[in-house]
């Protein structure tokens, strides 16, 4: 299993994702420079968190035009696994690989805190290691994670079950109080119709070791790795 971690100017979760993949998960790691239109044979491409191009104008607006993004688009069309985390999610929306957009948090404030997420899809390569409707604890760290989509898109997402993670309370109840940024329907992460492109605002790479406060994030990385194993055996 070979993970590719994309590095834009202004990206910072690249090193954290790399750390988890390489040191905690023990999988193969390849950094992908934004200027190189080459995915170096990676099986899963991660668009990590950060402020690509300073998030100037709009989050992800400039990054989506990087040479590497074109290749990632083709890769996704061919069914390759693409995983956008925080800023990466924003880039995927700007690039049209995922529907909707992420706007300013309702509070207008940056928020760095732990959140509870209810996992609504466990049949995905990204979540296979999670239990049905399991509640996982994952931190967020963003100023613009407020998910928006027009009513039609939103109902399509819901009908097709493309909402993967929702902000909830410790018991799994999806409440306003548990919504840290004003996202519609408490959406924290969505997947494309085909199920191979995931975008999420929370940071699983920040909770893959107990000393950092939790290990639920590791489940997602393990899922991807395990998925690849399946492919190998079958």
């Amino acid at each position: 299993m070979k993970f590719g971690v994309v590095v834009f100017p202004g990206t910072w979760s690249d090193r954290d994702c790399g750390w988890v993949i390489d040191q905690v998960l023990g999988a193969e790691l390849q950094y992908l420079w934004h200027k190189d239109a080459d995915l170096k044979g990676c099986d899963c491409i991660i668009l990590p968190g950060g402020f690509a191009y300073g998030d100037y104008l709009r989050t992800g607006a400039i990054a989506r035009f990087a040479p590497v993004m074109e290749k990632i688009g083709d890769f996704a069309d061919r069914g390759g696994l693409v995983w956008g985390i925080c800023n990466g999610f924003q880039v995927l929306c700007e690039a049209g690989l995922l529907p909707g957009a992420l706007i300013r948090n309702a509070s207008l404030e940056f928020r760095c805190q732990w959140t509870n997420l209810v996992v609504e899809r466990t049949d995905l390569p990204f979540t296979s290691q999670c239990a049905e409707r399991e509640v996982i604890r994952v931190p967020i760290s963003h100023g613009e994670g407020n998910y928006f989509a027009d009513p039609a898109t939103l109902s399509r997402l819901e009908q097709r079950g493309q909402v993967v993670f929702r902000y909830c309370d410790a018991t799994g109840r999806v409440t306003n109080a548990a919504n840290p940024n004003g996202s519609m329907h408490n959406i924290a992460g969505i997947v494309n119709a085909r199920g191979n492109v995931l975008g999420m605002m929370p940071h699983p790479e920040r909770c893959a070791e107990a000393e950092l406060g939790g290990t639920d994030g590791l489940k997602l990385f393990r899922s991807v790795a395990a998925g690849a194993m399946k492919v190998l055996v079958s």
Partner: protein
Amino acid sequence: MVDERRLREVALTPEEYRVIVEALKRAPNEVELGMLGVLWSEHCSYKSSKALLRRLPSTGPAVIQGPGENAGAVSIGEGWAAVFKIESHNHPSAIEPYQGAATGVGGIIRDVIAMGARPIALLDSLRFGRLPESSRHVEGVVAGIGGYGNCIGIPTVGGEVYFDECYTNNPLVNAMCVGLVRVDRLMRARAEGTGNSLMLVGADTGRDGIHGASFASLELDETSSERRPAVQVGNPFLEKCLLEACMDLAHTDAVVAIQDLGAAGLTSSVAECAGKVPGAGAHIDVSRVPRRERRMTPYHVMLSESQERMLIVVQSGREAEVEAIFRAWDLTSAVIGHVTDDGYMTVVDGTKAVARLPVSLLTDGVPLRRLIGVAAEQPPGLDMDALPPLIDPGATLLRLLESPNLSSRRGIFRRYDHMVGDSTVIPPGGDAAMLRVKGTRLGLAVTTDCNSRYCHLDPHLGAQLAVAEAARNIVATGAQPLAVTDCLNFANPDRPEVYWEMEETIAGLAHACRALDLPVVSGNVSLYNDSSGESAIYPTPVIGMIGLISDYDRRLGAGLRAEGDFVLLVGSSHNDLGGTEYLKVEHGLIAGRPPALDLVRERAVNRLILAAADHRLLHSAHDCAEGGMLVALAECCLLGDIGVRCPAIRPETPLRMDAAFFGESPSRFIVSLPSRAMPELQSLARRHHVEISLLGLAGGDSIQFEGQFRLPLAEIRQAWEGALV
């Protein structure tokens, strides 16, 4: 002789001008005058404080780099050095809170980068006037700190926030940065090697922050607002690229030195770099400096304070390697000159000569100012017998917890990314924060502390208490205090009582740091924090401290961990009510002497806590600070979300009830531990001659002292967290 007005504009005294003319044997030209003006300013030359600062201890077995470089460095083992420094950005933040704070963060980060280190943590120490009057400042500053730190991807893991009238017109914004570098890769900003190239990298140069007065005088012809100098606006995105590019410089051995551009821009960075090498000089061609705007004079270029720029000394002939590294990050770099051996800083504009000054005159030429200190009149004494007796400790606790200086800071630090880097093993919210050193078991504890009310009441003692509290916050995590960086914020030192405060403060710092074996390896002085003479700030010596734990698996949190644990008070309590939050909040008094500090006891208590942590006896530790024992105990409960049941407190005379609950005697901790660990802790305590007393048992969802009060945790949390959000 230039006219008085012009001198005032470049902030030089007639005496200083005389010294310049004497040294040059001629009158300086406009540009030279401007260059000398900024480098001889208090901010760059420390002419009022240098003599005093020499009194601070700056050596120790762990010290690799003391004061004098861009940041200090200490060895933390396994080949790693911790590089750190604190710096003030008070005046810019008063004018433009957001950008002032943001560029303050950007500046201190560059200091750490210049040492070749990768920044791993930021802390911010903030002082404001009372709320709500100061909310505009608070809003802007907090947003600015987060705006820069969050974008560049360095976690902001700690700091402090205080509110007091004395900061209404002079808010204090001190930012600290900590970095890591392999000991053998530590860089120093020395312009070695005649003929080596000077490269300017990063942002283009604009007319940012050129000291207004002198600038205006050069631009009398132009009056429109757009011709006036601009407040610096930070670009954290560009600095992130600059940071990564500078880290990539480690791949080449072509780099001789790195120096950030801060106050006084190109002039000071070049002069400082050359000044560190005996006989070295520099030749600069301003026409080669990449500009952001047209119509910039050599004066602008030499004095511009545009952010996100670095000066790099490169082996001649290998400039292309360096240029390529920066181009990869889409950063411009330009060779703007070279190192010489004539001891002069020579500035030309293409073929035109612009300035030629001895480097030594720029860096050490300024006559140190001999100021006199006169003791300020004694602050009001405290007649404790006149204080009404404490009636309801619970009600007082709630009022203290909801007071701005004691309420939870969560509303602030949740706006900072304090997790990026996957190293924050103790997040903000307790005492010191802790970062692991990846690839090792080492944990680095970091904190900033200062109770300036103590310093106001007694600068000498207050300074010692600041050092002691910082050390206590490090110890509370199980880490050994290692070294100090200090940010000394004062009013106008030309006023004898203020200079006296400086003398007393620095004497106090030196004493406490010696007693606790803490070298001061870097720091910063900010003077004239009294807008137009009135409303002077309290002397505010902010202590930034780092500490080390050999295995972060043994780290301690402040919050209670398990029901049924014993909760103890370590250390002894006295009638220390002077200068306390209790006096201020409950009786509206700022009076008396600050709590007495016995540094020998302080050491003993710290040793005990560290020994107990070493033996893994403790489940938690939290120091008693503002608000005394009961506030500290409440914090332990709130952070651990566990209540506590205690028998009534019956202080033995002469200890007063109010002092027992809310007195601020130093050298005290609240610890929790499983009952089975008690015997061993007791024998340890005896061996260290430290008094320990059982407060109660952890458990339940309320704090109660039988027959005295009982409060639900929820209600306490409401008071504590309701205030600052």
